[in-house]
């Protein structure tokens, strides 16, 4: 289990996360929702250990970083590295033997091409495959469905169910409510760096309505579209 207690994060005078208290249990899929700039990625970075912070983030089974697969919103790939070599690199980093690459290529990616030339969706799929091959216990997935085609979206959903079944901890963010509805057990609404609501599956519609009324309707009115 991951326990986040009194988490604060500031960049200079700008307070990005304020008093975050959350628990992520094994075998649960937790969704973090919020507008752009609400602090989702910063929260993920703090949990993953990319950022320093105030407060505590503890993991019951040891060092979080060494068992976490982190899928960033926009995965960065080194130049002149093929998809296959990227997967090898990610496995090497965790001292895991990389065998049967063809079988592990669940998204049918052109692994012998340079990863930097992949499309946005292919890059995401390659990065996700790497996190799966690493045998992680924790999965932090920032916008896993973004830019990915429908077939792959279905595969990702099935993967999330499988990870849940395997008792992994999954934390993800998405702006697509239907996917959150299908995959998450809990949703946490982050606004201006604060968790304003945490709900179970039966109350997801409350968060959806709240987001629509607060962030969409008024702003579209402000555009004065004719």
């Amino acid at each position, binding site marked *: 289990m991951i326990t986040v207690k009194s988490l604060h994060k500031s960049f200079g005078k700008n307070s990005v996360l304020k008093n975050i208290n959350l628990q992520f249990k094994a075998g649960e899929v937790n969704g973090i929702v919020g507008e752009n700039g609400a602090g989702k990625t910063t929260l993920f970075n703090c949990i993953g250990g*990319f950022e320093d912070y105030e407060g505590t983030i503890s993991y019951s089974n040891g060092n979080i*970083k060494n068992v976490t697969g982190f899928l960033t919103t926009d995965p960065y790939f080194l130049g*002149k*590295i093929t998809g296959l*070599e990227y997967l090898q690199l990610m496995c090497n*980093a*965790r001292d895991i033997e990389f065998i049967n690459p063809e079988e592990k290529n669940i998204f049918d990616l052109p692994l012998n091409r*340079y990863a930097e*030339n992949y499309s946005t969706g292919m890059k995401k799929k390659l990065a996700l495959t790497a996190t799966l091959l*690493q045998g992680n216990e924790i999965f932090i997935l920032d916008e896993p469905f973004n830019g990915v085609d429908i077939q792959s979206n279905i595969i990702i959903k099935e993967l999330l169910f499988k990870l849940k079944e395997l008792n992994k901890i999954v934390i993800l963010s998405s702006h697509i409510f239907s996917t959150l509805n299908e995959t998450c057990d809990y949703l946490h609404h982050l606004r201006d760096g604060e968790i304003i609501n945490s709900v179970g599956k039966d109350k997801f519609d409350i968060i959806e309505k709240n987001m629509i009324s607060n962030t969409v309707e008024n702003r579209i009115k402000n555009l004065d579209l004719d």
Partner: protein
Amino acid sequence: MKFYFILQLKRYFRYLKEAGFNPYIAFFSIIVLFIILSNVIFVKIKFAEYAYPFIALIILNKLSAKQRNNFLKNCFNLNNYKAVRLIENGLIGIPFFIFLLFKGAYLIAPIFIFLVAVLSQFNSIKSYSLVIPTPFHKKPFEFIVGFRKAFIVFIVSYVLTVISVKVDNFNLGVFAMLLNFLICMGFYSKPEPPFYVWIHAKTPTDFLKSKIKTASIFSFLISLPIVILLAYFNPDKAVYILLFELVGILYVTNNILGKYAYYPSEININHVFIVGLSIVFPPLMLLTIPSFYSRSKQQLNSILK
């Protein structure tokens, strides 16, 4: 369009400031360096009036990169895009044009400036898709990337070694070997994004050891053909060859540790100066390697904790 050029100037100022330079002094230094290097080319190279504009056109080709041009096309309408490219090429081409005139290349200079203008209207057609095979696939990172970018230099170094044997010039062979190591050093000059360090389930000590081990083995492998050839034809100098090999591996080690000593920041002017001094005076590495190692461990501690 005016805003675009002001923005570009601001960007260069920011890069220079981040690298620890005063932008005004840096710009002045670049002009002085340009004049000195141009003079060196005309003094040292035969047919410099041809080589000089050729070098300029190679530099200008960088501005024709497809991705950059697609961005410009998105920003500007077609006429303004063409004007931007023409001005950009002109800004780089004109100093070369003036120097050509200064050196009396009155025929070449107008042809050169015409080519500068023509080149501004074309995008680079360089293909990025060809995957160059390497022997480093088990540890795919710096050496795979570096080898694919610089394999021509390695071929040149091997050719130089063969020439050194043919003309019985041992020093040329040593130069080829050290050139190899300098290129391998370059593989570690730019800090990778923190994600690529964070993924390692290793302590800073283990991480650094594995980086140094990989770099030592691979740079040794790359230089092995040179070592064999030189040792075979100069058996009496085998000790020197091994000594240069050791120095080369220490160069690479020094650069790896130097990079992580400032990680995740880009290399700064002090680092460049110290590493440069170590190349000229290798015994300095007896001080820099332990110092960089200790600092690297501290720097990596926050990411690999």
